[in-house]
């Protein structure tokens, strides 16, 4: 793996915690790499395993479910 590898990560963020946490990170200007594409869900429990598999097979380097 080369040093400049930039992973593409699909993130599922629970509206009530992780998504709110992401908002707070913004208000607090915490800096992090722009590799994740956020998808808001109403609960991390609604993320079907099939979606995770699909994301990976379609080329995502990682999937993060936060809740």
């Amino acid at each position, binding site marked *: 793996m080369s040093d400049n590898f930039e992973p593409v990560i699909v993130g599922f963020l629970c509206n009530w915690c992780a*998504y709110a946490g992401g908002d707070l990170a913004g*208000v607090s200007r915490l800096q992090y790499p722009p590799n994740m594409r956020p998808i*808001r869900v109403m*609960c991390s429990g*609604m993320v079907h395993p099939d*979606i995770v598999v699909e994301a990976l097979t379609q080329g*995502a380097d990682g999937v993060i479910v936060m809740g």
Partner: protein
Amino acid sequence: MTLSELIDVSGEAGNFTATVRQKPRYVDMEKCIACGQCSEKCPKKVDDEYNMGINKRKAAYIKYGQTVPLKYAIDAQHCLYLTRGKCRACEKFCPTHAINFHDSEKIFTFNVGSIILAAGYKPFDPTPYDHFAYQHAPDVVTGLQYERMLSASGPCMGHLVKPSTGKEPQKIAWIQCVGSRDRSRTTHSYCSSVCCMYAIKQALVTAEHTANKELQQTIFYMDIRSHNKEFERYYEDAKGKGIRFVRARPHTIEGGRNNIGVNISYCLEDGRTFIENFDLAVLSTGIEASEDVRMLAEKIGFALDQHGFVTTSSFDPVTSTTPGIFVTGAMQSPKAIPRAVTEASAAAAEASRALVSARGTLTRQKTYPPEHDVSGEKPRVGVFVCSCGINIASVVDVKQVVDYAHTLPYVVHVENNLFSCSTDAQEHFVHIIKSHKLNRIVVAACTPRTHEPLFQDTLREAGLNAYLLEMANIRNHNSWVHQKDPQRATEKAKDQVRMAVAKVSLNYPLKNLEVKVNPKALVIGGGVAGMTAAISLADQGHEVVLLERSERLGGNTWHINETWRGTPLRPLLEDMIAQVEGHPRITVYKNAQIKTCIGSVGNFVSKVEIDGEMRAVTYGAAVIATGAKEHRPTEYLYGQHPKVMTHLDFDAELRDHPAQVKTAQNVVFIQCVGSREPERPYCSRVCCTHSVQSALKLKELNPDMNIYVLNRDVRTYGEREDLYVKARERGVIFIRYEVERKPKASQNGGALAVDVFDPILQRDIQLPADYLVLASAIVPHDNHELVELYKCGQNEDGFLNEAHPKLRPVDMTVDGLFLAGLCNYPKPIDEAVGQAKAAASRANVILSKTTMELDAIKSFVTEKCDGCALCLDVCPYRAIKLEEYQRDGATHKRIVTDSALCKGCGLCQATCPKEGVYVHGFTLGQLKAQVHSALEAI
């Protein structure tokens, strides 16, 4: 209204004129977009009081990241321009021209029917405690400072360090009762009742904040007061995790060598003294009545008690002595969050009770144009990209995003706005939506968590369904967090817009559900809690059915003599029963038991067995107040010797045979009989106060009587501590015992005696006893049937559970059900009454509406469901049922979801192996569209 203070009240209950002074904010709330430019450019640094002075903030500031309202303010005491006439940097840089140095103090008068005081408390300031070196040693901090040090959003970002060196601490000590239970340095003889638990919490949470494996936490205490639901388990858990509890009140804290760390001097019960070195000392500072309360009291005329808390009574725990003025929270007495929240609801019930005839006269409803039908139309997507002044545009190349959005499928209109959230922008959007016949909208701006309702409203104004909107959060989740990488931030913004367009194209109109509400209430349990709830609900205008299992109302209160404040209970109880039985809107059924329940919030139907006959009862909400009972002990010769009694037995003895009690020479009380033991690991909360109160009663009857209270910790929390102080002054002797070394009761020819090890004398002693009073546990009734019936929860000890221990302390996990009194957890009468009023208030929120609107994000069943029922078990709200239906002459199965119970969490959707159930607005198709779209660029 922020920055506002109530300065005067005139008029009478039902019609007050309240005068409010609002200090200038110097920031126009309409214009401020909370971008933080003013704060960034402000040159003046000030101690941040929100973080207890641990760090600095600017003179242009917000209190904290999630402040509501999220609007900046200028601190007039420190602003350079307002104090010295020079600077105005914020004004220059504010992109929306929101800074207004001409802002001035305003006086408002409001006409209101009632006033609720919830002004809180002041954390005790330990600066005068010179023996604890708080001012001189940097490594001595207060509990609230430590709380900020631990907080991930606090000044240390959650990385715990010693203030002196910036290194991680290894040995941390907590000192309890700083500014509480202290009559030598302060006048605060009372217990602040929250510090024991917060110290234990901090000790436990500290371990999560440090990588240091050698971490040692020590708590110095006099009595651990973990007297609330699940608190005792928490305490036991802390002991199990190695937190060291030392029963000692340190007399001196000094800075360590070079003022790094601290040396704590203390003396144990057996008289041995120690000086021990720690890296950090946390002073568990207590609660103090604030000066504002005294000023308000003087102005309005309501009474305060000796400690400056607002005076209330046991049956009216939220009512001040001035009619129409109510009180809640720590202003009334020191208390933890659940009770403050409970009593806040109680105060709402009381404050509105007298105003029922005026309900709904001052609230307004908004109207919208009819909704345009978009079914059958091809998506016509409009994309609005917000610059947010420079908040987005300084990092993300907004023009590139706009150009890119034009290339996306179905997109027919794209534009860039300086501020998409401004009022004129909304009018513009309505115009654009109509003129371009847009039927799907994407707003690429900030977070939907704060702004989705605003834009949904705009869609409705334009005749579009509110759910045809998606937001792309290119500010909080992009420009603000990728400030150093504009190029990739722009790429990410394009991706976010593309994902939102992909999803919104699949969005379809959703209708918020409306459920008709039956305005009747059911109250189960006719004790003081149940009766209080019934009266409160009936006074709010609702028909109430009250069920009592036995043949008389009143429950346990018949057997108790007085409240902890010494108010005789019998007359109050008889009054209350008369009120319930005479109330035109309350129907009482005695010898009644609930047997079935169907339906959900707003519409329940139950069968009730009354004197053996079945009857149907319909109701929109229910309060469960089924109570609890006194445990019958099996130890200490209970049942074998007539003078061994429980509290209720002894109350009866005091009531019926006072002359006989008066002749007693020696009375022994044993605490925690059946509580805080492996088979019942909770504290029964009321028994310590009851014993102390009975002891005082005995001392009144005969001051020469010898009274011994054998205890494990004395838990006279809050202002009950004053009783404990009084009992010691009157000569009641308190002897502590360990659960591993319990006292032993024996009889010799009818003479009772108790053997116990005295930890101060360090030897066994024998106490003669004319009476042996056992502070027996409070145990729940068998709630099994009720739990089965309502599908509600109970804890391991059998007490019914609230939906959330802090924030929803009277709501049950099932919507429309509320609880009050002992069935929830042991508690004294004033707290049971407060909880009952709160339950009534919460039920009133439902019952006062003719229809209830539920949002549309709910599960729904698709054609593919084959009734495998995998989702039934995972649904946390029990909103899914299995049904049979006929098709082509055969019986099939499928699920049905109850929208009133469903919360839209989608656990069913994730569990279903065959796409048989989805959540509106978040279907598998919609989520997959976002995933595909996110990965399209690869």
